[in-house]
């Protein structure tokens, strides 16, 4: 624990950093992830948003020491994150990190995200990217093409490299929090893709940082060509919507 403590970015007291985990039926992994995160960031508060799980996700998360926000029915990651961002804003947290509850994000990499914002406080959003050159994460076939396309489109819109647009590993500061607590797209892919476009339009700055990700233990990565085609289509729709939609009013404050 001692070497980890040396690397830790100084947190001025508790209540500064909130680590959010949207979770839907993740009872097998959530407790372990919560413990890992708490071990890696002892000063941070951990909030698990139970997005209408039908298993013991909420109980196990609470037993592992997380605060648990139980949503009455499934809202999707977008809804869960908006609820979490609003909670964080109302509580006055300065930074919020989103982490997946399935354990594919390495808790040690929380530090990597924090270090970026510590080095340059003008960066509002730090995205942990698995394709930016660190670690190897296997994604192949049409799904990979779809992600490539999404990445190219988003990079050109946002103006900074976004090689892993669907990454659910992100750090935001108060400015981004203020925007996303009110406006956070709830559609499929919207929570990652459109949210970034929205943030960019609101004048927020973002930077990606390479992180190591583990292969998902409860393997759901689809290699079904039909599913991949549907995914590609949804990617196109998501980009199209993000481009066409009017930016929310009063986001940039």
């Amino acid at each position, binding site marked *: 624990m001692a070497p980890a403590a040396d690397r830790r970015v100084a947190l001025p007291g508790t209540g500064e950093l909130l680590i959010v985990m949207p979770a839907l039926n993740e009872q097998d992994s959530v407790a372990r992830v919560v413990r890992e995160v708490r071990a890696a960031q002892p000063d941070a508060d951990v909030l698990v948003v139970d997005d209408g799980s039908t298993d013991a996700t909420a109980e196990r998360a609470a037993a592992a020491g997380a605060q*648990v*926000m*139980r*949503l*009455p029915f499934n*809202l999707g990651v977008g*809804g869960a994150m908006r*609820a979490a961002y609003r*909670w964080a804003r109302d509580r006055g947290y300065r930074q919020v990190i989103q982490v997946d509850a399935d354990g594919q994000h390495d808790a040690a990499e929380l530090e990597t995200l924090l270090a970026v914002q510590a080095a340059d406080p003008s960066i509002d959003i730090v995205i942990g990217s698995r394709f930016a050159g660190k670690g190897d994460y296997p994604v192949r076939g049409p799904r990979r093409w779809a992600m490539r396309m999404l990445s190219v489109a988003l990079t050109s819109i946002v103006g900074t490299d976004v090689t892993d647009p669907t990454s659910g590993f992100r750090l935001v500061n108060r400015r981004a929090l203020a925007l996303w607590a009110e406006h956070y797209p*709830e559609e499929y892919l919207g929570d990652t893709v459109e949210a970034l476009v929205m943030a960019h339009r609101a004048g927020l700055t973002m930077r990606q940082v390479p992180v190591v990700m583990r292969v998902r233990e409860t393997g759901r990565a689809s290699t079904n060509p039909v599913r991949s085609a549907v995914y590609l289509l949804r990617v196109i729709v998501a980009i199209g919507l993000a481009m066409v939609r009017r930016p929310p009013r009063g986001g940039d404050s």
Partner: protein
Amino acid sequence: MPTTRLTIISVIVAVAALVLVFELLRRRRLREKYAVIWVLISLATVVLAAFPTLLRDAAHLVGIQTPSNLLFFGSVLVLFAVSLQLSREVGLLEEQSRRLAEEVGALHLRVEELEKKQQAAERGSETGRPTPGSEAQSSRRTSAQ
């Protein structure tokens, strides 16, 4: 040319539709904002059913040869508008219920926190009671603040 029998049947159907709308409205099953459009539509249907020549003249005026095509065209337009409006409303309702769900989640968490805090306070006061002087201590603390 529409026969008298056809006219009677269409009038009956149109009046039935009007009565249905009215009844729903009367039982407060239909909101006023939707009622207006449905009442207008069913009234127009009654008028057209009673006076089929109106439709023919209108079709002639617009330049449509078969009067029923004007009717179809009009119906499609109206239905399109109504369903688009309903889609919009459903989207709005979904957004509202999502917001509510998020709020419920947050409120739940706040209540749990408060309950925990209260329980801790109660436990503290229960264990604190037997020791003499603790009451005086706490009163001193409050007066000092």
